[in-house]
């Protein structure tokens, strides 16, 4: 093909230079199931050897390809088998030690984050799962690049309320262990319902069951590009046409990701896994999902109509992405993290966007309650209630939902939590002060829902 069209060339360049189009992450997903051993030191050595062997060229090759196409590849990451399973083989498991090994390996190969310090406990917890969960606060406080995720619920298994209660306590501790940094430990920890095993985004990336030995999963972003496309339409354009425009842009973004993903996978000599087109905002001006709501015609994120706008956006992104790649996976859709999105921060700071509205929005977004700072003195049982609500939304609607909230130590409504970089900053949001204690402390499991009679 001898395609040489000036308008198309300029469109691509402007997507990158003005509207922040980027490859958000290239994530090497790697099985560590062959690293089990009865001796935890041996497990550590095997893990370290395998990660550094497979990921040694990830950063270099990703940087090379980024240069060749002049498109930023922002993050290089590794996602591994849930560590609870790998460490469980040890006579004396030491999960904090394994977290430090992951961090060391990540540091040596120059990647940004490593995910998979987690467990899948939607139906129950093994001894290893419990040990791992208990070690999370210390592990996250003692490492820089390790991310943790725990799957607490699924549409097929229901909600493990004992695990929900446990994680409420762990979230609080993780924040307290990192109090000087506004509880950043909790920002590296996410609780899931229906967690996908091929998600390249953090904090929730891990290498799931049924996945191959290794694969390259790629996450593409571009809320700024979508916003610019919507803004280019006349104000009176019907919503169906707006959705179509979003689909076209999503197609273009995903195609680019697919190209980069295949090229990098070939270069690394590993299979290409999936592409995840998720509109993941950054604190950069214009790179905002809430900005898309404004472009659609809402005064600000949080206005009545926001949930509808998000539903349309999320669906159109998936439809456009599906057309561009045979293997779309991960979370694919629109993220609504508060601290990482300048317009969301603004809406929350001005009281337009409340916790309850965010919860409603998670019914139709691609993940869930994300990067929300709440008062540090929020009771554990209230946090458990928040998690249970979010898990219920995912379980009933057969979608992935997640909770990444930060009870910011020694801060309250009116204060700001500041993390910097891609994690941004967030105003502390008020949560409902009524007690959830007697409900969540019943524990046990909320049964899986019926999958017929849908209404």
């Amino acid at each position, binding site marked *: 093909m001898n395609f*040489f069209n*000036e308008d198309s*060339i300029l469109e691509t360049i402007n997507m990158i230079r003005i509207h922040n189009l980027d490859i958000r992450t290239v994530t090497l997903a790697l099985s560590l199931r062959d690293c089990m051993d009865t001796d935890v030191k041996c497990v550590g050595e095997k893990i370290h050897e395998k990660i550094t062997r497979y990921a040694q060229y990830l950063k270099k090759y990703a940087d*090379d390809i980024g*240069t060749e196409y*002049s498109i930023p590849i922002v993050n290089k990451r590794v996602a591994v088998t849930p560590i609870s399973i790998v460490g469980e083989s040890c006579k004396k498991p030491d999960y904090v030690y394994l977290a430090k090994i992951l961090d060391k390996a990540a540091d040596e190969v120059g990647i940004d984050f490593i995910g998979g310090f987690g467990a899948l406990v939607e139906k129950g917890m093994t001894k290893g799962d419990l040990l791992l969960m208990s070690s999370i606060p210390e592990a996250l406080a003692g490492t820089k690049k390790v991310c943790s995720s725990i799957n607490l619920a699924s549409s097929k298994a229901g909600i493990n309320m004992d695990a929900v209660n446990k994680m409420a306590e762990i979230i609080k501790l993780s924040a307290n262990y990192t109090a000087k940094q506004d509880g950043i430990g909790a920002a590296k920890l996410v609780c899931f319902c229906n967690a996908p095993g091929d998600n390249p985004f953090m904090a929730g990336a891990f290498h799931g069951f049924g996945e191959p030995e290794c694969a390259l999963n790629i996450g593409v972003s571009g809320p700024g590009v979508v916003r610019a496309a919507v803004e280019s339409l006349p104000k009176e354009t019907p919503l169906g046409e707006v959705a179509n425009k979003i689909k076209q842009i999503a197609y273009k973004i995903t195609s680019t990701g697919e*190209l980069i993903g295949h090229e990098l996978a070939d270069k690394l000599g590993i299979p290409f896994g999936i592409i995840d087109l998720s509109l993941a905002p950054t604190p950069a001006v214009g790179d905002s999902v809430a900005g898309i709501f404004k472009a659609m015609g809402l005064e600000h994120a949080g206005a009545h109509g926001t949930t509808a706008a998000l539903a349309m956006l999320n669906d159109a992104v998936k439809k456009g992405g599906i057309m561009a790649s045979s293997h779309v996976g991960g979370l694919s859709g629109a993220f609504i993290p508060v601290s990482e999105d300048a317009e969301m921060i603004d809406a929350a700071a001005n009281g337009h966007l409340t916790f309850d509205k965010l919860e409603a929005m998670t019914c139709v977004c691609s993940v869930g309650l994300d990067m929300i700072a709440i008062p540090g003195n929020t009771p554990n049982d209230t946090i458990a209630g928040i998690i249970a609500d979010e898990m219920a939304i995912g379980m009933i609607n057969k979608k992935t939902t997640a909770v990444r909230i930060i009870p910011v130590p020694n801060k309250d409504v009116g204060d700001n939590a500041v993390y910097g970089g891609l994690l941004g900053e967030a105003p502390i949001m008020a949560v409902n002060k009524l007690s959830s204690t007697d409900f969540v402390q019943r524990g046990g499991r909320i049964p899986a829902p019926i999958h017929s009679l849908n209404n």
Partner: protein
Amino acid sequence: MTTTNEDKIVITILGADKVGIVAKITAILAECNVNIEDIKQSIMQNLFVMFMLAKTGEKSVPFNELKDKLNKAAEEMKMEIWVQKKAIFDKMHTI
């Protein structure tokens, strides 16, 4: 040797029009053994924009080296330059 898309690059130069832009860029391409297949230029929104389709071969310098030289030249001319493999445009704008 058959030409594949992998060999093709697109060079885009943007900025205020001045004498010698084409000369400077083409001299670098010649020096780096890169063959020019097509050139288009226009004024868009008071900005000079030039597009070049070029083909690298076995005798061409490595991509990074070529890009560094072109970046340096553009910087001297106070122009913005984009050097990209052509596949990104093919993939993004065709179904």
